[in-house]
């Protein structure tokens, strides 16, 4: 499977991650018919280089916006400032509710988890799916 994404979304994520250094950045992408339509920075209330937690009220407001605009949740992204652009054990655990309850389906079974690493000079942006198990699958992406 090859996912095609407009490059402006990748640029947005990289800019957000860089300006949030040294802390992790996080945000949400909306879509219509599986095509990304809008992207939003969300406040990381953990304000930490090692973890993120999205501001709940901002989350709620974005959910209302999706309902109003007929959009879907397409992806959530966050940065790793000094580790690889791969879901960490904590990321995988938190994809389930309650966290770590791998016997159930993940909270989101159809969205992409986008990881950006600022470990090296050139930012690395990669897409994943997290499924029951847990199973983590990387998705090939073409930015155009």
């Amino acid at each position, binding site marked *: 499977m090859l996912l095609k994404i407009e490059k402006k979304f990748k640029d947005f994520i990289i800019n957000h991650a860089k300006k949030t250094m040294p802390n*992790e950045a996080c945000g949400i992408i909306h879509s219509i018919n599986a095509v990304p339509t809008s992207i939003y920075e969300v406040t990381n209330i953990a304000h930490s280089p090692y973890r*993120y937690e999205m501001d*709940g*009220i901002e989350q*709620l407001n974005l*959910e209302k916006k999706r309902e109003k605009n007929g959009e879907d949740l397409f992806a959530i992204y966050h940065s790793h400032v000094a580790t690889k652009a791969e879901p960490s054990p*904590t990321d995988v655990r938190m994809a389930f509710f*309650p966290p770590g309850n791998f016997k159930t389906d993940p909270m989101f079974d159809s969205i992409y988890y986008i990881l950006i690493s600022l470990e090296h000079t050139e930012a690395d942006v990669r897409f994943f799916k997290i499924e029951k198990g847990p199973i983590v699958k990387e998705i090939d992406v073409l930015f155009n």
Partner: protein
Amino acid sequence: MTINVRMAAVIQKITNNQKEFVSEGSNIKDLIQNIEKEFPGFKNHILTDSNEVHQFLNIYVNDEDIRFLSNLETAIKDGDVISFLPALAGGSF
């Protein structure tokens, strides 16, 4: 007393896919007990065995996080909107 309850999309399965509904209660603890009567199992998703709110579950009275009010004892009144949503969170390790 009518309390408006809103469930975040990702946990609506614990309320039979109902996004919004009305319930009753004079505080958050009462409200959870009343929702439990309508949706058995609800409480176990919201509270731990020691009757505390799960660490990564957020409850808002209108736009106020109950952790900054009186937690489960937070008083609620007619017309309030109570939102339940799990935190989107993670980390590097």
